[in-house]
Structure formats: structure tokens, C-alpha cells
């Protein structure tokens, strides 16, 4: 493997991972903002409007960071992956251009109106602006997932004589079965980030005995929506994705599960460390037959291990892929447990007084970010060694003239810049949470109060 290739891969991985910290929250919050605005409209209770205004400020900061870190993503297709862009641009250029034309214009136009136009738009008009921001951000998500889904499972294309791919079916690309399921799974992940963040801020207010009426609204909203999302994340969306991988990317499934040899009645590994050299899982903690059942709904079904495939078709980062997948599934299971337990307490009317549960909700806040990141790592590392599954290898897609030194230069630049942005982000979000949702509460708007 060439050195430049590794730098280009890490360049994309680093910038996309940092970028996706922001859209996963804004896409999730966009839904919750529509929920809060709908409650305000339906009940006429100003409390929900104030709650929405608080979350709109958090949304605004995250949205701005999502925009500035998102622009480099579109550029990098051309700058770092020129050979891939030349070959596949005729197909995925469609979805990427549609994202610009249909979502970005919508989002950028109505976000300004949503954030600053509440007075002039009126109640219904402001609800509409919230809904259009939601629509824009969720459409954007679809076009991006459809692009990735095409790389995972190419559809609606044909090969040109020069080796490039061109579009042959617009709807084949847009309604790729893989895209629909991956989108559902991905958006549920974003909704869970939004719910956990909202519930955590609510729990913080309840535990510190401030803004408690808002705290209850935030915890209730986060837990109700979050429970539904956590369950749907596992079934049906996670389940179908697993099956699609089993049928279409069998070597990926084997690597995710750390299954080196084919087995009838394959076990599900809960823990264990894959040793690729010796082709085995060390210290395995396994549940017999479960992998066969989950994949084929038959306890004794035959699941193919990695040894069935030539090593050149194995994903090149098997341990990392294995851990990403296990972290994602493990955290997903924890989310179901936390959310369902909180929902039961809420139903019994004891959640707001249960300090233990509120503590758990508060400290869980980094976990959905980790789970979403691990999920995307599973998808992208699992696609290796292919850039477009079965059509183009990752090594063939890189820009032929951009040397490792130049890629390092810009990677280091992004690292420095993003470190500053991360500090800024934490600082500004901390300030908003400290100031709280009550208008005029807790010394809005001056640094002096924050530093004393």
C-alpha cells in the first residue's frame, strides 16, 4: 500500500468524522424542534416556544459548525479522490449536485428566518420555517446516504467505453434499496443523538434544581422520542442492514463478526480480540448459534468465514472494523436499556425524582456520538478494499498527482483548525446551557460573568 493512499484515506476519515459530530445533532434536533413548535401551536403554551428558542440557539451554533466543516467534504471528492471522481462523477455527481440545489438553498434560506424572524413571521409562519429547516436537513441527509449507498451497492449505472460509469437509471440511483434502509438506520441514530442531548440537559437542570419546568420538558421529550428511535434502530433497520451485508458483502460480515472459519450454527461473539495473523478470535465470549439465526433465521445455518474469500478481498482493517461494529451494537443495546427504563419511570410518574436515572441520562451524552461514529466506521471500513463495491478498489481512486507531503500538509492544517473549532464549540454550548432557557436569566451575554 502506497504511503500517499494512507494519508488521503486518513484525511477523509478525519474530516468526515469531525464534520458528522454536528449534523447528527442538528438533524436530530430539527425533528425535536418541529415537535416543540407543534406543541406550542397546539396548546398555545408559551413555555414550548421558549423551550424551542433555547434549542434553536444550540441548533444555530451546531449548524454553523456543520456548514463550515461540511464544505471541505464536497471539495475532497475532487482534490483527494480525483480518479474516483472522474470515474464515478457521472453517477454520484447527480446526488451531490441535488443536495446543493434542493437542500442547501432550502436550509440556508429558512434557517435565517427561523432564527431571527419569529416576530415578523407569526406563529404559523414560524412553525413553517422550522418545518422547512427540518425538511432541508433531512433531504440533505438522504442525498449523502444515497451517494454512500451507491458506493456500497452500485445501482442504476452502466460502464462507458473509457471505463467511467454513467447514469442509466435515475430512480435506480435515487431509490436504491440499500439507500432507503441505510437512511432509516442513520437518521434514527441522529434522532438518538438529539434525544440524548436534550434529555441530558434536562437532567442537568433537574439535578442542579434550576429551570426545573424546562428540565422536565426536555427529559420527557428526549425519553419519549428516544425510546422509539432506540427500538427502531435495532429492529427493523439494524436487522435489515445486517442481512443486506450478509447477502451482498459476505466477507464484510465475517470480518465484522470476527468469523475466520465457516460454521454451521455460527456463534455471536460478544467479546474477544481478532488475531488476523493466526486467524482466530482470542478470549472469545460467544453465544452459540445466534449469528446464524440473526443472519438467516435458522439456528444451524451455514455462515461463511473469511477463509472462504481470497485475502485480497478482505477488508484491510479487520480489527478496527470488528471493534467499530461491536461498539455500535453494544452502545445501541445500552441505549435501549436506558431509554426503556427511563420511559417506564416516566410512565409511573417517578422519573423526575429518580436521581439515579437522571444521572445516567446526563452522563450518557457522549455515547450516541460514539455510536454514530462507530456505525459509519463499520460501513466504510466494511466496504474496503473497495471504493465502489466490486467495481473500483480504494487504491485506484486516489488523486494521482497529489503527493503524500501535500496531503499531510493539509491534514495537519485541518487538525489544527478543528482543534480550535472544538474548543470554541464546547465553550459556546457550555455558555448557552449555563444561561438557560429563561429569557433574561443568569446573566446573558457577557464574558465577565463567565470568567468571574
Amino acid at each position, binding site marked *: 500500500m502506497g504511503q500517499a493512499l494512507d494519508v488521503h484515506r486518513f484525511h477523509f476519515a478525519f474530516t468526515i468524522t469531525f464534520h458528522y459530530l454536528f449534523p447528527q445533532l442538528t438533524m436530530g434536533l430539527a425533528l425535536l424542534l418541529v415537535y416543540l413548535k407543534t406543541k406550542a401551536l397546539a396548546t398555545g403554551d408559551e413555555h414550548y416556544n421558549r423551550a424551542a428558542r433555547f434549542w434553536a440557539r444550540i441548533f444555530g451554533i451546531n449548524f454553523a*459548525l456543520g456548514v463550515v466543516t461540511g*464544505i471541505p467534504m464536497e*471539495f475532497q471528492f475532487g482534490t483527494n479522490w480525483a480518479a474516483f471522481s*472522474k*470515474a464515478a462523477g457521472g453517477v454520484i455527481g447527480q446526488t451531490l449536485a441535488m443536495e446543493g440545489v*434542493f437542500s442547501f*438553498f432550502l436550509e440556508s434560506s429558512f*434557517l435565517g428566518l427561523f432564527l431571527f424572524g419569529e416576530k415578523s413571521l407569526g406563529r404559523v409562519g414560524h412553525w413553517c420555517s422550522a418545518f422547512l429547516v427540518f425538511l432541508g436537513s433531512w433531504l440533505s441527509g438522504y442525498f449523502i446516504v444515497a451517494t454512500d449507498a451507491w458506493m456500497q451497492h452500485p445501482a442504476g449505472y452502466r460502464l462507458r467505453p473509457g471505463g467511467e460509469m454513467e447514469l442509466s437509471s435515475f430512480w435506480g440511483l435515487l431509490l436504491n434499496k440499500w439507500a432507503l434502509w441505510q437512511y432509516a438506520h442513520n437518521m434514527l441514530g441522529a434522532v438518538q443523538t438529539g434525544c440524548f442531548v436534550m434529555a441530558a440537559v434536562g437532567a442537568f437542570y433537574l439535578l442542579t434544581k434550576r429551570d426545573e419546568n424546562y428540565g422536565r420538558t426536555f427529559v420527557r421529550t428526549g425519553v419519549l422520542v428516544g425510546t422509539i428511535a432506540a427500538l427502531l434502530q435495532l429492529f427493523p433497520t439494524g436487522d435489515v442492514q445486517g442481512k443486506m451485508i450478509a447477502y451482498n458483502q459476505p466477507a464484510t460480515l465475517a470480518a465484522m463478526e470476527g468469523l475466520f472459519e465457516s460454521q454451521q450454527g455460527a456463534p455471536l461473539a460478544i467479546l474477544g480480540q481478532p488475531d488476523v495473523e493466526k486467524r482466530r478470535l482470542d478470549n472469545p465470549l460467544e453465544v452459540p448459534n445466534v449469528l446464524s439465526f440473526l443472519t438467516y433465521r435458522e439456528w444451524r445455518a451455514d455462515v461463511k468465514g473469511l477463509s472462504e474469500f481470497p485475502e485480497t478481498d478482505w477488508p484491510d482493517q479487520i480489527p478496527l472494523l470488528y471493534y467499530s461494529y461491536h461498539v455500535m451494537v453494544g452502545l445501541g443495546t445500552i441505549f435501549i436499556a436506558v431509554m426503556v427504563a427511563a420511559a417506564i419511570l416516566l410512565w409511573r410518574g417517578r422519573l423526575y425524582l429518580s436521581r439515579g436515572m437522571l444521572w445516567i441520562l446526563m452522563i450518557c451524552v457522549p455515547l450516541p456520538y460514539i455510536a454514530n461514529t462507530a456505525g459509519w466506521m463499520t460501513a466504510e471500513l466494511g466496504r474496503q478494499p473497495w471504493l465502489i463495491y466490486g467495481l473500483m478498489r480504494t487504491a485506484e481512486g486516489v*488523486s494521482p498527482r497529489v503527493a503524500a507531503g501535500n496531503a499531510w500538509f493539509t491534514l495537519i492544517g485541518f487538525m489544527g483548525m478543528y482543534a480550535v473549532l472544538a474548543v470554541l464549540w464546547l465553550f459556546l454550548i457550555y455558555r448557552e446551557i449555563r444561561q438557560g432557557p429563561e429569557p433574561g436569566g443568569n446573566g446573558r451575554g457577557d464574558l465577565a460573568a463567565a470568567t468571574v
Partner: protein
Amino acid sequence: METVWFCLVAIMIAVYVLLDGFDLGAGAIHLLAAKTDQERRQILASIGPVWDGNEVWLLAAGGTLYFAFPALYASGFSGFYLPLMMVLWLLILRGSSIEFRNHIQSAVWDPFWDFLFCGSSLLLAVFFGAALGNVVRGVPLDASGYFFEPLWTNFRLGEETGILDWYTILVGVLALLALVMHGGLWVQMKTSGEVSSRAGKLAGRSWWGVLALTATITGITFRVQPQVLANFSTRPWGLVFPLLAVGGLAGVVFELRKRSEPRAFLASCAYLTGMLTSVVFGVYPMVLPARNPLYSLTVTNAKAGNYGLKIGLVWWVLGMILAAGYFTLVYRSFAGKVAVDKDSHG
């Protein structure tokens, strides 16, 4: 079909330059035209609700370029790797400074972001101009369809060119002056009091520089890129584009004297449109000229498949109608001069 898409991408880029051009220009004069915090907030308020939407035209134009001419996107973006990445960094700094400046009022917070906003806007204008200069001059493409340009070599127009040579630097300076004029006229139109009159004066002063450099660079361009002169002599109807630019430039000074602020801004729009369309007309059918004409990328050898281009026309037109609707709504709700009250911080 490919010529249609060539024109559509050109229109998108022109709209980007007209719209983001005024907020880049406003940024470039930010420190000069506005001195106090309240004045600076006037400039920021004059672009606040629209700058992000304006920048989307860059993304949408980039996406459309990718979809219609993938080979151009691949070759151009990887060849201009370093300057594009720097443009990205500047866009990140600039976006952050506009969005985060007004979160906190402090003697160390605002001036920091004001400086970043001004500096990044200024450099972006120069970079975009230099990029245009590179496209006109031609790049060292070879038979593989790729190239890589370092930031500079020896600043001469030889075979091994860098991004910066005396010609592209000159175009970069023209771009900065033109956007200072454009942004100055916008700020003059959208603000009131001292800021408005200082911005108007800056626009008037940069007008002379724009005039001088436009004349000089036009003369040089005919020698640097022979295709331009050839295109204008074989298809003389194309002269409407440079005429639009000249008319616009004359209009700016004429309307400034008459103190008609919106018309002066519109004249500046006409100048920028005329300049860009002249360049586009001048290099057609090339989309990226090579120093060795054999290897130039043209609308035919860089285009995507016909089916995709046809179906794209359907959704593109639909999307543009929607976008035009949003922009009308946003700009209408933002009509007139901005007002900044003393405590709009937070």
C-alpha cells in the same frame, strides 16, 4: 447538451460572484469602513441573513460542475489542491467569525473576529481572482488529463507554471479591487451614517484601480490566451459581454456621482457579469485550457453521460425555480437599510 450545461454552470458561478462577492467585499472593507463596535455590527447586519445562502451558490455550482463535467472536477480540483484547501480554511475562519462574533461582547472577543473576518474575506477575493487567472492562462495538463501546480515556481508564464505568477497575481489584485468596489456599494446601500459614506468613498477610490487593471489585463490576456481573441473575431456577437462590463463600470461612477446607491450597486453587478461572461465566452469550448493545447479539457471530453445530463436538466430547472423563490422571499424580508440598536448583542 454539453454546451447547455457549460452555460448553466457559468450562470451559477456568475450568481455566486455577484452575491457572495458583495459579502466578501463587505468583509474586505470591514476594518476600514467601520471603526466602532456599533458600526461594525452594521456591516455584519448588512450581510448577516444572506451570506450563508450566498455561499451555497459556490457549493451548488461545485456540485453541478461535478455532475456535468466529472473529468474537469477531478482534474481541476486535484491540480489546484493547495490553493483550494487554503480557500477551505479561509471559508471556515470567515464563517466562524461572522457567526460567533456577536455571541459575546468583550474587548478581546470582537476585535479578534473582526480581524479574522476582514483578513479571510480579503484573501479569498485574491485567491478566487488568481484561480480565474489560472483557468484563462492554462495549466500544465498532460496526456493523462491530470496536473499538479505548486503555489509558485518562478512567477513566469513558462511550461512549469505555479498557481501564482505575475499574471495570476495581477488578476487576483483586480478581483480584490472589484469586490471592494462591489462590497463597498452594497454596504453604502444597506447602511446609514458614517459607515455608509466611508464605504461609498472606498468604492469610488477602488473604481480607478479597477479601471486601470481591467484595461491592462485585457490587453495582456489576448497574448496569454490566444483563444480569447480568436473567439471574439470569429463570433463578433460575443462583444456584447465586454460591452456590458464597460457599460457597468461607467455606470458605477455615473450613479455614484448622482448618489443613486441601488443603481450604482446594480451597475457593479453588470460589470462583474460582463467580465465573467467575457472570460467564459473567450475560452469556450475549453473548460480548462492546457499550456500545451493538445491536452486541453473541453466541454466534449470532460462531460458526463448524455442520459444523466438530460435528466439533470429536469431537476435542475425545478430546483432553481425553488431557489429563486427562497431568495426572493429572504431578500424581500431584508429590504431597506439595516438598523442596529445599541444592545442587540447575544
